[in-house]
């Protein structure tokens, strides 16, 4: 039971989403509390190369307000970012750059491919364009659309939050995860 604050009779404290709680304490597992904290503070790293980037700008803006989901601070340094958003066509020549950006991000790190080009190459079925960024880095969430609306990008972020919340705390140390990175030829520190 939440205690009522001040004179406003309508205010209720938000009950905890997970675990077991009572006045002044909460019991939950480390996995869940860490997942909760991580999922509500995903710092985005926008990697925008074309029109999907414009949609992302709208998503960051006041109308759609990505900040509501704990992504207030776009991080333009990969080292402080949790969530890489790749928006737009990635030419093969750009591939190594994107890969280096990914490699510079600290664990745990997640990737959202926004738009048809980042997901699959889109209409650019041509010799110069990477046919989906999952050819060079692992992707957690795909947002289709050409370009997707800001609502779709928000939906993608919320899907990622779900993933983050339910991720095992030890996943990044697991042999499966290391094997995944190794399959992309990415160095595991």
């Amino acid at each position, binding site marked *: 039971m939440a205690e009522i604050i001040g004179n406003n009779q309508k205010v209720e404290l938000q009950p905890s989403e997970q675990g077991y709680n009572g006045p002044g304490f909460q019991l939950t597992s480390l996995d869940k509390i860490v997942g909760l904290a991580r999922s509500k503070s995903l710092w985005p790293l926008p990697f925008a190369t074309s029109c999907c980037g414009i949609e992302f700008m709208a998503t960051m803006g006041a109308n759609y307000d990505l900040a509501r989901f704990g992504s207030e601070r776009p991080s333009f340094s990969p080292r402080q970012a949790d969530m890489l958003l790749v928006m737009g066509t990635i030419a093969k020549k750009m591939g190594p750059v994107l890969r280096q950006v990914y490699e510079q991000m600290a664990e745990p790190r997640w990737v959202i491919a926004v738009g048809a080009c980042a997901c699959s190459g889109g209409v650019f*079925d*041509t010799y110069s364009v990477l046919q989906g960024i999952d050819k060079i880095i692992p992707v957690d969430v795909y947002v289709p659309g050409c370009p997707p609306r800001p609502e779709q990008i928000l939906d993608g972020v919320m899907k990622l939050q779900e993933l983050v919340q339910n991720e095992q705390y030890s996943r990044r140390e697991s042999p499966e995860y290391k094997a995944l990175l190794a399959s992309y030829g990415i160095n595991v520190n």
Partner: protein
Amino acid sequence: MALDNATVQQKVAEKFGEAVKDFTEPYDMLTFEVDRDKAIELMQFLRDDDILRFNFLTTMCGIHFPDNEVERQFAVMYQMHNWLDNTRVRFKAFLNGENPEVESATRLFNSANWMEREAFDFYGIIFKGHPDLKRILNMDEMVSFPMRKEFPLEDQGRTDKDDRYFGRFPANSAEVGSVTPGGNR
């Protein structure tokens, strides 16, 4: 007095004789063909002559004609502009299909540097005397010259696109059912 096409044609023909031919004027722009050995000499003449004064290399590019005879399978096209009389000229030189080589224009115009690198990148045309002939737009690891018509436009590494859904069929096959799902071409 503005420089007219007839004057340009007359001066060029006088100087180069047999090496220049096929003068036409599509959209009022003087266009002609030059022997590949004379292309850069011609460019220098157009630039340095006191009357012609084509002081600016507007653009240049490679062209591929795979159906021509071997001696004429590639071409380089140059466009020059006389800023003083506002007159333009275009000329092309045809190159050998097995050994596309032409002298570099970089000694006349620095702006030719990147344009020749682009023509090399996409067509594999060798510009003799270019200071740094390497790829400019495509990735360095690329082994093909993608604008040559024998190279397919589509990325050959794709695995998730079925040609049937893109309106493409493999050559010599009109049968939709004969396409292997997920097959490339």
